[in-house]
């Protein structure tokens, strides 16, 4: 059973993955996978290493073409895009799907601000009359570039990077780079944002900041989120809906609580339960308390 949402208008489906199969040579990375991502929700895709999560992502964002199946993206306007038929860059431009990468891919030699301006390439390109008008110094382009900087500023503020705007992106700390990558993706005005392990390598404080940013994106911009995550604390904390994969097939699908208590998930993914951790911690606290006493 799905958790009932307060606003049923928001819970229509934005992304429909239908019977997707992906083979690499003889290896089946995803096998007949179907799941939905609902609008205005954070959907998490979890599963053990090699379960095919990143492959699903690459199919959705056009870096791979699935061997079989359909991936349908329904925009707010009602326009439906067949993502499995589109080439990589049109998925962002036409279908309004943006993504981040597991091993952060920033333009390290450009400044933080420039990274966000590159993300507005298509808008600015049109405003500059495909370079010709801009080269001649037309006003329309000048206005557009001012607007682009304003938008970049807005996202810098949200990602808490405003004071780093003029530093090279490669100079940022790990956590800041992750936030910048998300801000950059948001500058393309996506309707669906796909995040590949956004919390990997973050310390607990940075993790909290990330959760805040992701929630803000969902609540303030109406963007839906699909994320892959290893860190269960992030998944359980922020996601509205969890899909669990193992060996390229779906083994569970539901709210975080439902998934957490699904015996199939515990067996396949967790392997260890939290009680064991607590037990050992208790034991040690006990022992040291005694020693001190």
């Amino acid at each position, binding site marked *: 059973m799905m958790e009932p949402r307060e606003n049923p208008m928001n819970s229509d489906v934005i992304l429909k993955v239908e019977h997707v199969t992906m083979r690499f040579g003889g290896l089946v990375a995803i096998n007949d996978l179907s799941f939905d991502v609902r609008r205005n929700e954070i959907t998490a895709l979890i599963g*053990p290493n090699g379960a095919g999560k990143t492959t699903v992502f690459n199919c959705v964002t056009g870096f791979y073409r699935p061997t079989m199946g359909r991936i349908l993206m329904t925009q707010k306007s009602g326009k439906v895009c067949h993502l499995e038929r589109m080439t990589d860059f049109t998925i962002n431009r036409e279908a309004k799907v943006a993504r981040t990468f597991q091993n952060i891919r920033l333009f390290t030699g450009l400044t933080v601000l420039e990274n966000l301006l590159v993300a507005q390439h298509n808008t600015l390109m049109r405003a500059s009359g495909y370079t010709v008008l801009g080269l001649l110094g037309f006003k329309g382009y000048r206005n557009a570039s001012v607007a682009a900087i304003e938008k970049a500023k807005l996202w810098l503020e949200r990602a808490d990077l405003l004071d780093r705007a003029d530093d090279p992106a490669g100079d940022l*700390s*790990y956590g800041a780079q992750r936030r910048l990558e998300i801000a950059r993706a948001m500058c393309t005005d996506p309707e669906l944002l796909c995040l590949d392990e956004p919390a990997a390598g973050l310390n*607990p404080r940075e993790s909290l900041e990330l959760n805040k940013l992701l929630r803000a994106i969902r609540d303030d911009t109406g963007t839906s989120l699909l994320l892959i995550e290893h*860190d269960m604390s992030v998944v359980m904390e922020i996601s509205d809906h969890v899909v669990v994969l193992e060996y390229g097939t779906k083994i569970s699908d539901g709210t975080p609580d439902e998934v957490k208590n699904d015996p199939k998930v515990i067996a396949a993914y967790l*392997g260890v339960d939290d009680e064991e*951790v607590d037990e050992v911690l208790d034991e040690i*606290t006990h022992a040291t308390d005694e020693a001190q006493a």
Partner: protein
Amino acid sequence: MTQPLLKVENAETYYGNIRALSGVDIEVQKGEIVCLIGANGAGKSTLMMTICGAQPARTGRIIFEGTDITRMPTHEIARLRIAQSPEGRRIFQRMTVTENLQMGASLDKLAYYKEDVEKMFTLFPRLKERQHQRAGTLSGGEQQMLSIARALMARPKLLLLDEPSLGLAPLIIKQIFEAIRVLNKETALTVFLVEQNAFAALKLSDRGYVMVNGRVTMSGPSKELLANPEVRAAYLEGGHH
């Protein structure tokens, strides 16, 4: 006082002008499992590379068995029998599992290869099944096992393990940590372990160090660190897999 197997004295390492390690002091005694925990970007992997001379310290000293190895080239340090299973596993993708293991055993020109490889296959039976496969086709967990086995093939006096749990499902982490424990118990292998998974690391090790922003901020027996409220707040609660 017994001379420690490895002693890091006031080591400072830079990437360009960015200081990655500042005044790090660490000791590892023979037969111990010592762990270093800390968040990503704290400088843990830099320390591993500094010990191996791959990212040499600008100041300070690294002393192994009484020899100053701070400025030694990496391959000569390896020949002193310090073996590393580095961050990201770094297995040779286009070589077979066997060839990867042979690379590990090349210090002795494969003299003990046959007997050692059997030990590895007992320790990690999955590798035996895959010995003729190209390493790049292994799963993440198998690659991690291969990386550790390759390091062990060098018959190390000191084994450096960098994030053996990274990106692995909890079940596999358990298996790998169990293997390390067995090795330490049975062959008195000295292990210096870097981990982000603080709980698992502290549970396994004898002593631990905590690193924050390139500095060692805390150290002590692992059990004490596990019980320390600061450590628990920062590294254990809300983060364990």
